[in-house]
C-alpha cells in the first residue's frame, strides 16, 4: 500500500481549496456537509490543480487540455482561476460538442437508419440549441410541439426517430419524466402502478403526430368528406353518400390513367425516396385504439382512448391550442412532479458521476433521493435558473465539493453515496476520441459544425420541388408523363430485345451469368433515362439533376489534415521525408488510419460497428443512454496494436512536435506526462522512468508513450 500513498501525497502538494464563489454553490456544499456529519464522514481531500484542470476540460469541453491550456492553468496565480476557467469552458464550442454527444445518446440520434436529411438537420438543430443554451423547458417544448417539413426545422427529427408513436411515447416519458412505463404498453405494469389504460391515455396526447406522409400526394384529388354532415345522416343516407363519393373519386381517377400515374410515380421515385421521413404533421383528430388483445374489464378491445395525464394536474387544452400543446405545457411545467427533478438529477450526475436518484429514468412513487434536502434544493435551483443548463452546471462546478479528489473506492450497488467528492469515471468513447484528436491536432473545438450549408441548399431545392409538384397537380404531371411515353416505349423494346437474345444464348447452352448481370444494369439505366426526361420537363435540367443525385453529405474533413511543418520537412533527409509522408498519409485517412481530424460530434452517429468509437462503447443509439464504459479485449487490442499509437508517433501530430522540441529524454518524457495526464511524473514513477532512459536509450520515449496509452490511467477522469 506504499505506492498509492506516495502518489496521493504527491498529487496533494501545493493545494489550497478555493472558497466557492457563488452563494448557490455554497448552499450545496452546506447541504452536503450536513449529510457527511450525519453519516460520520469526512470529505475527500482537495484535488490538485493538475487533476482539476484535466477534469474540468473533460467534464465541460469533453477532451483533455492541450499542453498550453494545462500549463496556463497550473501556473496561474489568479485566485479566481477556477471560476474563470469554468466560464471559459462553458462558453466554448467544446461544450457544444460534448453536450451534443450527451443528448445524442439520450435522444438516440441516428443518421444511418432512415431519412439521412432529417437526421442531419436534427443534429444541426440540436447543436444550435446547445450552443445557444436554450432553456431546457423551452427546448423540450420545442421538441414536443414541432411539426412541418424538415426545411422548417430539424427538430422534427425527434418525431421521426420512432415510427410507432406508442413506442415513441414510452421513450418520451422515460427521457423527460424519468419514468419507465414501457411494460404497460402491452399489459399492466408488473412492478409499478401503471395500467395499460394509463399508457394509452398518455399515448393519446402524442398519437396524432403523423410522420409517414411525404409532404406530397401523388394521386387524383380526393373529394373532401364532410365528416360532421355524415354523422348527422341516417344509415341509408350515409350509404348513398359514400357511393356518391366513391363515384366522384373514380371519375377523378379515370382522367388520369393508372399506367400514366405509375410512370409519374416511377419518375419521382428517386426523388421521393429521400422525401420519406422529412415531415411531421399533427392530426388533432387521431386517437389510439386499445389493442385487439386488451384483456382488462375497464374497456373493450379496439375502443378509442382519450388523452389523460398519468400524474399531477390535468393537461388543460386552452382555446385554439392542440392536445399536444397542452401536453407539452403540462410536461414542462415547474408544477410537474418529475420534470424538474429529472433534469436536475441528470445534470448532477453529469458533474459528480452518480445521481442523487439512480437510475435517473426509473422513478416510482416510492423513490427517495439519497440526499432529499439537496434534491429539493437542486430542483429549486433549476427553476431559479429558469432551466438554463449552463447556469445550473456553473453552480455545480463551482462547489467546493466538486474540486475535491475523486473518491478512491467504488460505491457498492445499493449503498448510499454521500458525495464526499466526485467519483472516478472512465471517459466516454467520445471523450477518449476527442482526447486523441487533441493530442494529434490540439484544440479543434471551433470546427464543430452547427451550420450545415450543403444541407440547407438541398433543403431549399426540395422545398421548391414540392411547391412545383403541388402546383402542377396530378393531371399536369401526367400530361408531362405522356409526352415522355414514346421514349419509354422505345427503351422498353430495347430491354425486351436484350432479354430475347439472352434466352436464346441460354438455350444454346452458353454461360449467361455475366450477360444477365449486364442486362440488369442496362435495364435499370434505360428505365431511369425515360423517367429522367419527365423530371427534366418538370423542373428544368439543373434542378432535376441535383435532386436525382440526392443528398450527398460531404465526407467529413477530407482536406483537413494535420498541418505539415514545412521547415522540419526541409531539414529531413530524403529517407526521413519519405517515412514522414508515409506516416502522415497513413494517419490522416484511409482504412488504416483513425481519421483523427475532427471531434466525435462531427462523426457519423453512431459510428459504424467495429470502429474506434464503438469499440470504446459509444451507444448504438438503439436505447436511451446506451453507451457503455465496460472494458473489453478489442479496446485493449486497439490501444496495443491499432493506429492510436501511430497517431501519437506521427511526426505531424502536435504531441510529437512538442516532444521533438523538448531537449533531453527526461524532458521529452515529462512533456509526454503533461500531454497525456496533465501532470509531472511522481517521484516513484520518475525513478522507474530514469531506469528506462538508462536501459533503453533512444527507444525510451516511444516505450513510455506506448506504455502510458495502454495503461488504464489515461482512460479515467480523476
Amino acid at each position, binding site marked *: 500500500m506504499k505506492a498509492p500513498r506516495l502518489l496521493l501525497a504527491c498529487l496533494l502538494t501545493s493545494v489550497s481549496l478555493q472558497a466557492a464563489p457563488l452563494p448557490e454553490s455554497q448552499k450545496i456544499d452546506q447541504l452536503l456537509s450536513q449529510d457527511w456529519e450525519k453519516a460520520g464522514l469526512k470529505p475527500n481531500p482537495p484535488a490538485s490543480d493538475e487533476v482539476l484542470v484535466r477534469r474540468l476540460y473533460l467534464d465541460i469541453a469533453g477532451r483533455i487540455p492541450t499542453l498550453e491550456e494545462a500549463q496556463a492553468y497550473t501556473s496561474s496565480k489568479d485566485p479566481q482561476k477556477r471560476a474563470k476557467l469554468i466560464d471559459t469552458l462553458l462558453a466554448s464550442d467544446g461544450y457544444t460538442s460534448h453536450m451534443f454527444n450527451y443528448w445524442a445518446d439520450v435522444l438516440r440520434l441516428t443518421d444511418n*437508419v432512415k431519412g439521412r436529411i432529417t437526421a442531419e438537420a436534427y443534429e444541426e438543430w440540436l447543436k444550435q440549441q446547445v450552443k445557444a443554451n436554450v432553456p431546457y423547458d423551452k427546448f423540450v417544448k420545442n421538441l414536443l410541439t414541432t411539426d412541418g417539413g424538415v426545411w422548417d426545422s430539424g427538430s422534427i427529427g425527434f418525431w421521426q426517430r420512432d415510427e410507432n408513436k406508442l413506442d415513441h411515447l414510452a421513450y418520451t416519458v422515460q427521457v423527460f419524466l424519468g419514468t419507465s412505463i414501457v411494460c404497460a404498453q402491452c399489459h399492466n405494469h*408488473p412492478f409499478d402502478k401503471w395500467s395499460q389504460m394509463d399508457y394509452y391515455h398518455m399515448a393519446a396526447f402524442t398519437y396524432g403526430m403523423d410522420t409517414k406522409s411525404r409532404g406530397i400526394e401523388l394521386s387524383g384529388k380526393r373529394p373532401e368528406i364532410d365528416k360532421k354532415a355524415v354523422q348527422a345522416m341516417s344509415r341509408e343516407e350515409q350509404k348513398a353518400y359514400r357511393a356518391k363519393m366513391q363515384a366522384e373519386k373514380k371519375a377523378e381517377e379515370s382522367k388520369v390513367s393508372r399506367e400514366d400515374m405509375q410512370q409519374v410515380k416511377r419518375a419521382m421515385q428517386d426523388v421521393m425516396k429521400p422525401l420519406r421521413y422529412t415531415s411531421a404533421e399533427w392530426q388533432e383528430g387521431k386517437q389510439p385504439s386499445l389493442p385487439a388483445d386488451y384483456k382488462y374489464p375497464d374497456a373493450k378491445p379496439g375502443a378509442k382512448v382519450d388523452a389523460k395525464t398519468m400524474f399531477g394536474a390535468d393537461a388543460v387544452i386552452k382555446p385554439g391550442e392542440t392536445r399536444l400543446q397542452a401536453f407539452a405545457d403540462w410536461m414542462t411545467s415547474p408544477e410537474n412532479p418529475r420534470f424538474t427533478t429529472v433534469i436536475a438529477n441528470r445534470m448532477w450526475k453529469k458533474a459528480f458521476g452518480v445521481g442523487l436518484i439512480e437510475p435517473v429514468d426509473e422513478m416510482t412513487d416510492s423513490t427517495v433521493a439519497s440526499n432529499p434536502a439537496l434534491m429539493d434544493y437542486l430542483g429549486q435551483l433549476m427553476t431559479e435558473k429558469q432551466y438554463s443548463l449552463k447556469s445550473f452546471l456553473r453552480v455545480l462546478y463551482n462547489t467546493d465539493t466538486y474540486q475535491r479528489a475523486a473518491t478512491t473506492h467504488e460505491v457498492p450497488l445499493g449503498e448510499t453515496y454521500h458525495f464526499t467528492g466526485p467519483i472516478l469515471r*472512465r471517459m466516454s468513447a467520445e471523450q477518449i476520441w476527442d482526447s486523441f484528436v487533441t493530442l494529434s491536432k490540439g484544440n479543434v473545438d471551433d470546427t464543430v459544425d452547427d451550420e450545415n450549408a450543403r444541407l440547407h441548399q438541398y433543403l431549399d431545392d426540395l422545398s421548391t420541388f414540392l411547391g412545383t409538384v403541388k402546383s402542377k397537380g396530378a393531371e399536369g404531371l401526367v400530361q408531362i408523363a405522356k409526352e415522355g411515353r414514346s421514349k419509354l416505349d422505345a427503351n422498353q423494346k430495347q430491354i425486351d430485345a436484350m432479354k430475347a437474345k439472352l434466352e436464346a444464348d441460354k438455350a444454346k447452352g452458353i454461360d449467361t451469368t455475366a450477360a444477365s448481370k449486364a442486362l440488369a444494369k442496362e*435495364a435499370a439505366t434505360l428505365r431511369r433515362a425515360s423517367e429522367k426526361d419527365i423530371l427534366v420537363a418538370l423542373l428544368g435540367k439543373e434542378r432535376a439533376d441535383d435532386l436525382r443525385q440526392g443528398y450527398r453529405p460531404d465526407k467529413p474533413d477530407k482536406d483537413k489534415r494535420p498541418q505539415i511543418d514545412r521547415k522540419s520537412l526541409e531539414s529531413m533527409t530524403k529517407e526521413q521525408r519519405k517515412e514522414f509522408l508515409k506516416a502522415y498519409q497513413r494517419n490522416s485517412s484511409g482504412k488504416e488510419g483513425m481519421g483523427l481530424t475532427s471531434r466525435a460530434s462531427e462523426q457519423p452517429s453512431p459510428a459504424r*460497428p467495429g470502429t474506434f468509437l464503438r469499440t470504446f462503447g459509444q451507444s448504438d443509439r438503439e436505447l436511451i443512454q446506451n453507451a457503455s464504459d*465496460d472494458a473489453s479485449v478489442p479496446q485493449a487490442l486497439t490501444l496495443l496494436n*491499432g493506429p492510436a499509437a501511430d497517431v501519437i508517433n506521427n511526426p505531424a501530430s502536435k504531441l510529437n512536435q512538442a516532444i521533438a522540441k523538448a531537449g533531453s529524454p527526461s524532458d521529452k518524457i515529462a512533456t509526454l506526462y503533461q500531454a497525456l495526464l496533465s501532470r509531472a511524473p511522481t517521484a516513484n514513477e520518475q525513478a522507474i522512468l530514469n531506469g528506462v532512459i538508462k536501459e533503453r536509450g533512444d*527507444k525510451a520515449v516511444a516505450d513510455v508513450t506506448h506504455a502510458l496509452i495502454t*495503461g*488504464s490511467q489515461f482512460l479515467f477522469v480523476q
Partner: protein
Amino acid sequence: MKALLHSCDDVTRRDFAKNIAKTCLGVSMMSALAPRGYAAFEGSSKAKQAATAKRVIYLYMSGGMTHLDTFGCVPGADTMGGTKTIATSADGVQIGELLPHTAKMMHRGAIINSLTSTQGAHAQGNYFQHTSYTMRGATRHPTMGAWMQKFQGKGNVDLPGSVIITSDSKHPGGGFFEAAYQPLILNDPARGLQNSHRPGSLSEGDFDYRLGLSAKLDQGFQQAYNYKNVKAYADVYKDAIKVMKSEDLDAFDLSKESPETHAEYGDGNFAQGCLLARRLVEHGVRFVEVNLGGWDMHQDIAARLPERCGDLDKALGTLLTDLERRGLQDDTLVVLTSEFGRTPKINQNEGRDHYPKAFSSVLWGGGIAGGQVYGKTDKGIEVTENKVGVPDFNATIAYALGLPLDLVLYSSTKRPFTVTDKGQPITSLFA
C-alpha cells in the same frame, strides 16, 4: 405469469439471473439447478433433448431471399417466374436451377417451406428473425449465439463466444446481456481480427518490455483506486495478450488456407466469411453468422438472380462439402434463413416485393434428418401444411443445441425473456 412475478421480489429475481450466468456449466446441470417455479414460462416449450449440434453456422440472406426461385420452388407453377428446378441428391427434392452445388448436399438438409413472419419491413423482419421478439419498446433482445454462450459457456476461452461477419451496422448481438456475451463483429473477413498482431516495426522483445513498463507505471493508479472497472482494464490487457499469443489466433487468418481451398470457396465477402466460419468453428467458436446481402430484388429479379445465387451456391456448396470432409457436419448445424420471402407475383418492374406470409429456410447437419421437405405452400402463396412461425424456427435451432426453451432470464428492465419466446421446436426434423 403475473402472479409468478409478484411472488418473488426484484433482488431475488436479479440474483437468480446472475446465478444462471455464473453457475451455468451445462444444460443438464442447469435444469437441476433451476427451481421449477422460475423455469416455467407461460407458452414456451418444455421440449428438451441432449444436444445434437455443438455449433452453428448461421447464414443470413439479408434483404429477403426469394423463396420461389431458391428452396421453395413449386415446379410448374405460374408463380415461378421462369425459374426452372433441378433434382438434388435427396430423393424427390427439387430446388432452383441456380443452386447446382447446393443441390448435391440436399441429402443432408431439411427444407422448411412453410415459414411465416409477422414482419414485412427489413429492419423489423431482420430483428424478429434474429431474436424471436418483435422490435419494440426499450429492450434489445439477445440473439442465439449470446443465449448459447450464456447457457453453455464458450467453446474456446481464448476466443470470442460468437462471431458475426457482416457489413450491416445493425445487429441485435448480445442484446441486454453483459458485455462478455456480445458477439465479435467483423466487417471484413479477409482482414480477420483487427489489431491482433503487434505492429510490424516492433520486435517481440520491445513489445513485451512495453507491456511490463505499462503495468509498472499503472501500478500507482491501480492501487489508488479500488474500482471494478479499473481492475477490469488490467484484466482485459491480460486477455488481449492471451488472444494475441494464442495459437488459436490463427483461426482468424485466412491466409493459412491453401490457394485450392480459396478457389473452391470463391471470392467476395460471403465466400471468405464462410471459409472463416469454418476455421472459427474448428477452433472452438460455437456460433458464427455470415451475412449475404443483395436479396431485395424489387426490379428485374430474373437478371439479378444468377449472380446472387451463384455467390451463395458456390460458397454454401463448398462449405457443406468441406464440413463433411472434415467430419464436422454431424454436429455442426448450418442454418440458411432470411427475414422474409418475395411475392409470388412478379411486379411491373419485373421484380418481386416483400412477402412474409410464406417463405423458406434450410437446415443442414447437427442432428437434422437430411433429405426432407417440411411444410407445403399453395404455389408459394399460402402455407397449406405445417405452418412454422419465426420463433418456432428459432426454437428448432435452440432445441438442436439442447438449450432450455422455457428458462426465463430477466433484462435490466426486469422483464422476463426466454431463448425463442413461445416458439415450439419442430422435433420431427431430427433424425
